[in-house]
């Protein structure tokens, strides 16, 4: 059970950066929180009312105000700039793609479109399957993400990846899986009564298995 | 330690609690304050109404701009053009009404009743004309097939201009009431608030229009 109390097992290339940022913030926040709590509890006990005692008349302290304002500001702004790079890698640019899919969300399924043998999307030999996404390990997968009806959200916990699928616009998403296995693709944005339970399967395979599976699929949808 | 005495026992000024409803002009109201507020509560209130109206319009204008800047063709080929010339004239009508009402304010400060009534009536007439012209133009546009439902072009047009129209209508109704009161000689130099409040609101209604005109008709 314990291992479930933390992030699910990470299988993506940018996952470690995300987890690392989470931990950095975790420690900053822990220090701040513990400091605040200690101060609070100590004051609460130390300065509890006692007969015949009068509180000390202190109106404030400008030096302190300036100190804690600037310190917090610095910590937070630095944090923001640290996060920028990672964010840019994941959502703005990122490596050139090696495998290309189109994912089309609809109430309440993921339509995954593989480019046909010609390797191009949008040609008639394309192959569309519902909820079954197979990817080769160690390849940069680029997805054109969109939706047919309402907003859904493409979420793979193990990849640390989440991106809303918005009708009317195509959003580019990329990831690179580092471990073979079966993972879930839940929908993370409320999309109607079927939102709960809207999920696909992500299968990360060796290149060989992947090619074989893809070949079978094409063969099947030939006849 | 300094001897402490309470304020009220310092100078005894019993308050007669047998007032049915406290009215703001009551001298003891809001504490025996000597300094007068820098602005009457009513004026403050109307200014705040205007502030929130501005947020309302900026929401609409923001949405309009998003659609306007996204679309390649504006207006879309199929749909009728908006009546520029007539609306130029109408803009002039509305803006001149702002002038007349400012005259009315000037007049009331000099307690010149006949002048006041004349300018108020003029403003009212101009306001009504504006609405009438807008209305007739809308009828024509609908006839030419520009509907609320015809794309973001039709939608934003009717919502934005309609919202302004609703504000003008409200202003006209208010003006009408003010005119009636003015006919009864309600207002004079010492009692001009009624006119001033209405004028401020009317200024707002007039001031927002040119912006909408430029964005929706000319841009």
């Amino acid at each position, binding site marked *: 059970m314990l291992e479930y109390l933390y992030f*699910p097992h990470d299988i993506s290339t940018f996952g470690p950066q995300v987890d690392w*940022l989470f931990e950095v913030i975790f420690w900053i926040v822990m220090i701040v929180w513990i400091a605040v709590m200690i101060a609070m509890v100590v004051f609460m006990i130390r*300065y509890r009312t006692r007969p015949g005692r*009068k509180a000390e008349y202190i*109106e404030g302290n400008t030096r302190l105000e300036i100190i804690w304002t600037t310190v917090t500001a610095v910590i937070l702004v630095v944090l*923001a700039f640290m996060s920028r790079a990672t964010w840019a890698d994941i959502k703005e640019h990122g490596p050139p793609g090696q495998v290309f899919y189109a994912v089309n969300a609809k109430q309440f399924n993921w339509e995954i479109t593989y480019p046909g043998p010609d390797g191009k999307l949008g040609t008639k030999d394309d192959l569309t399957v519902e909820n079954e996404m197979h990817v080769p390990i160690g390849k940069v997968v680029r997805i054109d993400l969109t939706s047919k009806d309402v907003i859904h959200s493409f979420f793979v916990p193990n990849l640390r990846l989440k991106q809303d699928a918005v009708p009317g616009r195509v959003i580019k998403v990329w990831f690179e899986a580092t471990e073979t296995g079966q993972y879930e693709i839940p929908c993370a944005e409320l999309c109607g009564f079927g939102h709960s339970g809207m999920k696909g399967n992500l299968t990360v395979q060796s290149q060989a298995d992947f090619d074989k599976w893809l070949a079978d699929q094409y063969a099947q949808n030939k006849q | 330690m300094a001897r402490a005495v309470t304020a009220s026992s310092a100078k005894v000024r019993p308050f007669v609690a047998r007032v049915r*409803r406290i009215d703001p002009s009551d001298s003891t109201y809001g504490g025996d*304050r000597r300094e007068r507020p820098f602005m009457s509560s009513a004026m403050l209130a109307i200014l705040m109404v205007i502030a929130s109206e501005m947020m309302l319009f900026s929401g609409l204008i923001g949405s309009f701009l998003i659609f306007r800047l*996204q679309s390649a063709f504006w207006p879309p080929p199929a749909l009728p053009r908006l009546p520029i010339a007539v609306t130029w004239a109408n803009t002039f009508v509305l803006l001149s009404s702002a002038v007349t009402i400012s005259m009315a304010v000037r007049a009331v400060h000099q307690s010149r009743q006949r002048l006041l009534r004349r300018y108020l009536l003029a403003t009212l007439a101009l306001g009504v004309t504006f609405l009438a012209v807008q209305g007739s133009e809308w009828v024509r546009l609908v006839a030419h097939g520009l509907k609320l439902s015809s794309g*973001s072009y039709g939608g934003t047009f009717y919502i934005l201009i309609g919202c302004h129209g609703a504000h003008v209508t409200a202003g006209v109704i208010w003006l009408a009431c003010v005119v009636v009161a003015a006919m009864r000689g309600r207002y004079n130099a010492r009692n001009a608030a009624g006119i001033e409040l209405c004028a401020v609101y009317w200024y707002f209604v007039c001031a927002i229009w040119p912006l909408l005109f430029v964005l929706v008709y000319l841009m």
Partner: protein
Amino acid sequence: MSSTAAVAAHGVHAEHHQLSFLRTYVFSEDHKMIARQFLFMGLFMMSIGGLMAMLMRWELAFPETAVPGFHWVPEPFMYDGAIPPNTYNAMFTMHATIMIFFVVMPILVGCFGNFLIPLMIGARDMAFPKLNMLSFWVGAVAGVIMISSFFVPGGAAAAGWTSYAPLSAVPIYTGVEWGQDLWCISIIILGASSLMGSINYITTIINMRTKGMYFFRLPLVIWSLFITAILLLLALPVLTTALALLLFDRMGGTHFFLPAGGGEPLLWQHLFWFFGHPEVYIMILPGMGIASDVIATFSRKPIFGYRAMAYAMISIAGLSWIVWGHHMFQSGMDPALGSSFMITTMVIGVPSAIKTFNWLGTLYKGNIHYTTAMFNALAFVAMFVIGGLSGIWMACTPVDMYIHDTYFIVAHIHYVLFGGSLFGVFAGLTYWYPKMFGRMMNETLGKIHFWITFVAFNCTFFPMHILGMAGHMRRIYNPQQYDFLKPIIGINEFISISAFVLGAAQFLFLANLIWSYFKGAKATENPWNANTLEWTTPSPPPHGNWPGTVPIVYRGPYEYSSPEVAEDFLPQSQLIEHSTAAAD
């Protein structure tokens, strides 16, 4: 003083009999009565919103099993007590809507705003008593409409309290017909109500302060309500715009949010969150103000850095307009824009930091009295800090990519809204109850309620952080449908049981409210030895607030343990020879 008070009190009594029952209790223009009306409305709605929460918790712990005692609910809303998905969606939608718009806002802004502003600035009533009454009744109408939407065919709105388009814009997407329309209409009407309210507050605070009550002598709770009113005034119209456009999409055949007709789904999110983020500070600022006053009073010490506190609230209000994008990091909004929103969002943590540290500074070297109000105020600080700190993770865009729309967010929501706003409400009610109802609240019962609530609250909402880290999505009615969530069902059960305790504990509070009203010890004029003006008049204050003249203010609100006098408090209105200069 007291003699004149007694005399006048008689006069007041006489004149109360003159006013008809209707004018005194129903269509009252007395700010104190209107405040009570808002309070009761809020508490009543709280029981409904809470009930929704309880049902949700049952569903999440024991998915698709019948809720005990709910077999009577007709299909399709429930199937012999079992909750279908759409009903679940309607439940968290209405839970959030009710809690935010009909519990926290009416109580924090409506009740405390109305009750405290005139009494604490030294005015005999609001600037516009009639408008004030109207504000309540319009709000009540909105409430009735919202509740009635449960009973229309298709059930209540089910697109989340954020009602993202296109889901909310096309009935077939949710299967909800009237519910969503009524939801929009109700909130538009509520907007009108709070517009009237905020105009009244701002005007009153600017124009009707008693002699000597300069802005920087206002109690912080008044500062907070003043700023809140400004936020309300400017934020709600934007929501009204969005709702109007949504209604037109639903009924008028327009396509503002529907890509099919050239609409833009993200437009809704921008409009909604441009309102939505100021809204969340609308819900916390009054709590901060209440906590400041209570903590200063019971530490018997001036608030630490009074001006810093006021400026911090002002800058929170200012910054709250430029951070809305942090709700849209994963929405497909330009990621570069996301980065800039991340920076502004981080920056908005700073003023909150100032406030936190100043509260601690107030405790320092104080002489702390542990009343129920004080406990709740301290809990406010502790819980708000937790909720605020969890906001830092979400502000960090890459981390938010993982925790967005998971229970991590739900945990944040409740730490700031229940741990913050509601503990603020508890603190405020126990502190001002004597002034509102003329009797003290029962301390023992109050402390029992506090401790159960405090413990149960943390047991309920802290584990949600862990659920969130495990990837548990929000707004799903059955976690069991996901393999990666099966192992943590235990946590969900634990949360639910704590939640039931938490809900039950609120009955203690209700009981205390009612019991104290009839049996509580009679309240003196100034039971807490506090400084602010509301404590210089009988409890409850007569019509017109002060039997004698309105007190004049000679100093700031937090002169506790001042060396100038022997007692450890020095009311704002108390005249001391050598400090008369302060008066003018």
